[in-house]
């Protein structure tokens, strides 16, 4: 060939998976790869066969169509494969799409593919991208491994080491570095990188990163100013729209929040979480019709995906009850039970939430029967029920005289959220409404005080150097309030302090890591989670950086 083309990559030793629903395209891709001496090529026509192939075999290269018809998309497969560690660290994932789509400019280091290819795919294009990405991934494999182990600090150091040379992917690495800094609680470092990028040019990802920092640190006005700079010019940047909606809600402007979500949905309506968000905001604004449609859309879109959750079903049945459509509400709950039959809490909720509907219909006998049958189950599972469900269930239970169940539910809720004044108020007003003001006050204040007490005693014991006793205390408390973010972080802090003194212990290490990961899920904006992960990582860590 001429000097215009590079030699094709040698793919003879690479195992390759092609995920593409159109057989014509599968054959074309295979033929191109064969011309680069590929022999180990396996093809999948849909998401489920792709996943089962990924489970059985470690592929070096994956070519995947972004749109695979109904059900899971190429993006869903990638995220599941990464989440379940089905890919070797050096693997190259190329996402193929018919056009440039909004989802290509968002996402995090853990959700982006290595590259996007826009159809028509030519041989030169595929070969040059494969060559470049295979080289790049070989260099990034140690970082990928660290990420997989959630060793963000180590990953950060490795990125820094790579940036020291004259790296052709400098800005990819810097973007990754900023994301890792955010994950390790090093907000100032992330800020420096985003500002450096914005000095260079108007890069939406950098402005979004800066806005995330403002949001996490509670500077909602600043966050909204940055986000509006992204969204005002262009409605393709969906992630910025979503964050702007949350920011506007924090600023008390629900009307504007709903408008922003609807704008994002006009660009990309097939997003179950965004539909759910629209439903929640519309419900808060009292726009029940909008809320109902949004929740229905969310349920339909999430049905066969890993994004399905009981939240949309419960919210929908609540709206239907408010609209006096009680048959529909009961129907929604029975669909919850069917669609999520593998989830025992969802099944419990599907039954329990019939109680308010039955009561609303005047079917007191049936409501009472349900409440009595489910009392034990509800008390056992109280810790895992979502706050909205607890609030909707508590008043009917009190009305039915099932006070001990209501107390158990609200008590658990308060101990898990003792620092959440809005929840304390809502719980109190439910008791007051039921004519149980004094009892309510005892329970609500008691539960909150008990939680605060435990925190204080833990801190005091650790200051006195009685780490063992402190850990015993927080460990027992964790069993009673497993979703209290502050307690989880305090417990992890104590475990780490213990190991700093007595050496690393695998069981304690896992316990601490689980606490931090759960706390991060419950309270993503708390940077203490990242800081503690870093401390945990530094414990007796002897990782060596390449020189």
């Amino acid at each position, binding site marked *: 060939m*001429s*000097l*215009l*083309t*590079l030699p094709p990559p040698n793919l003879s030793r690479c195992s390759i998976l092609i995920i593409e629903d159109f057989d*014509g*395209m599968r054959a*074309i891709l295979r*033929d*191109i790869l064969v*011309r680069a001496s590929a022999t180990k090529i396996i093809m999948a026509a849909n998401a489920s066969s792709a996943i089962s192939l990924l489970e059985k075999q470690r592929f070096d290269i994956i070519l995947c169509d972004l749109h695979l018809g109904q059900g899971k998309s190429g993006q869903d497969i990638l995220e599941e494969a990464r989440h379940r560690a089905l890919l070797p660290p050096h693997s190259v994932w190329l996402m193929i799409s*018919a*056009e*440039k*789509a*909004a989802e*290509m*400019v968002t996402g995090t280091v853990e959700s982006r593919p290595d590259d996007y290819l*826009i*159809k*028509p*795919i*030519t*041989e*030169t*294009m595929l070969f*040059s991208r494969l060559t*470049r990405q295979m080289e790049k991934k070989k260099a990034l494999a140690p970082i990928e491994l660290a990420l997989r182990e959630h060793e963000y600090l180590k990953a950060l150091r490795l990125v820094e080491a790579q940036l020291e040379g004259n790296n*052709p992917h*400098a*800005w*990819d690495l810097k973007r990754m570095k900023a994301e890792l800094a955010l994950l390790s609680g090093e907000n100032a470092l992330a800020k420096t990188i985003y500002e450096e990028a914005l000095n*260079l*040019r*108007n*890069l*939406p990802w950098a402005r979004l990163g800066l806005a995330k920092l403002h949001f996490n640190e509670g500077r909602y006005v600043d966050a909204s100013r940055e986000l509006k700079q992204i969204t005002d*010019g*262009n*409605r*393709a*940047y969906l992630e910025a729209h979503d964050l702007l909606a949350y920011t506007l809600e924090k600023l008390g402007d629900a009307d504007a929040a709903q408008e922003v979500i609807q704008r994002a949905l006009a*660009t990309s309506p097939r997003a179950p979480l965004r539909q759910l968000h629209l439903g929640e905001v519309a419900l808060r604004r009292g726009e029940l019709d909008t809320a109902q449609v949004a929740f229905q859309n969310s349920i339909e879109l999430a049905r066969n995906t890993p994004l399905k959750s009981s939240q949309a079903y419960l919210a929908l049945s609540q709206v239907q009850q408010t609209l006096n459509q009680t048959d529909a509400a009961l129907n929604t709950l029975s669909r919850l039970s069917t669609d999520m039959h593998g989830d025992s809490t969802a099944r419990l909720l599907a039954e329990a939430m019939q109680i308010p509907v039955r009561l609303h219909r005047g079917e007191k006998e049936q409501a009472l029967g349900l409440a009595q049958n489910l009392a034990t189950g509800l008390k056992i599972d109280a810790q895992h029920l979502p706050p909205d469900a607890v609030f909707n269930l508590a008043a009917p239970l009190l009305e039915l005289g099932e006070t001990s169940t209501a107390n158990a539910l609200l008590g658990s809720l308060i101990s898990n959220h003792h620092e959440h004044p809005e929840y304390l108020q809502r719980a109190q007003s439910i008791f007051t409404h039921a004519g149980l003001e004094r009892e309510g006050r005892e329970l609500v204040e008691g539960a909150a005080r008990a939680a605060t007490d435990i925190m204080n005693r833990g801190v005091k014991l650790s200051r006195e150097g009685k780490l063992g006793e402190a850990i015993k205390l927080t460990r027992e408390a964790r069993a009673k309030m497993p979703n209290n973010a502050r307690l989880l972080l305090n417990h992890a802090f104590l475990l780490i302090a213990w190991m700093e003194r007595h050496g690393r212990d695998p069981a304690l290490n896992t316990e601490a890591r689980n606490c931090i990961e759960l706390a991060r899920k419950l309270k993503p904006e708390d940077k203490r989670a990242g800081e503690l992960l870093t401390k945990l990582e530094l414990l007796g860590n002897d990782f060596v950086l390449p020189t």
Partner: protein
Amino acid sequence: MPTEHPKLDLSTFLLSSIHDMKNSLGMMANYLEDALAQAPTEAGSQASNTPARQKTAQALYEAQRVNNHLIQLLALYKIDQSFYPFDPTEQSLADLAREALARALPLAESKGILLDLDCPENLFGWFDYDLVFGVIVQALHNALHYTRSKVLLKASASEAGVVIQIEDDGPGYPEFLLEQGNAAQRGISFETGSTGLGLYFADVVASLHQAGGRTGHIVLANGGQLGGGQLAGGQLAGGCFSLHLP
């Protein structure tokens, strides 16, 4: 009783049809490229420019040309409606150049035109890959149409960023195109049959790229490295299209 049709917006059909045609032409281009790639191994290198091969290359060019136009239309529509996901990243110009030249190569070979590349391996620029790729391929196709024997793709660093140039040794751009500086005024020419889409697209793409107070732009000129000489009437020969990106 007349059947009642639900009211439908015709533009929805237009859009989805353009998508469909674009995808179908893309597949056609893929099949034809595949056919070309397999042909020489069967026929042996002696017969690498058979009439069948030439016609396949021509068909590939036509499929690519219309496919490109539809991609440009869709991108322009998205830009106009402000939902094009504009995403400049730092990328290798040599990679871009090679991928674009690969699109033009089958047609160039079938017409016996020499393609040349002048680009340092370590040159990087900030741009939206897909948009700029579309502009370059369009400019290469255009140059192949008018050139006599050669087309040169050149990329270099400039004071403000990077410049990508496509030069040919044809008669050069007609006077009226050089005079009408602003692409928006060029519009549709019924005389030449040109829709003006390509230049308009290039103009829009260039101006989306901004940094440090500078905005990207395109320049049409005659002369250039391959031109060398004047036509009767004093006009410089050799078209030269440049895309300046900050």
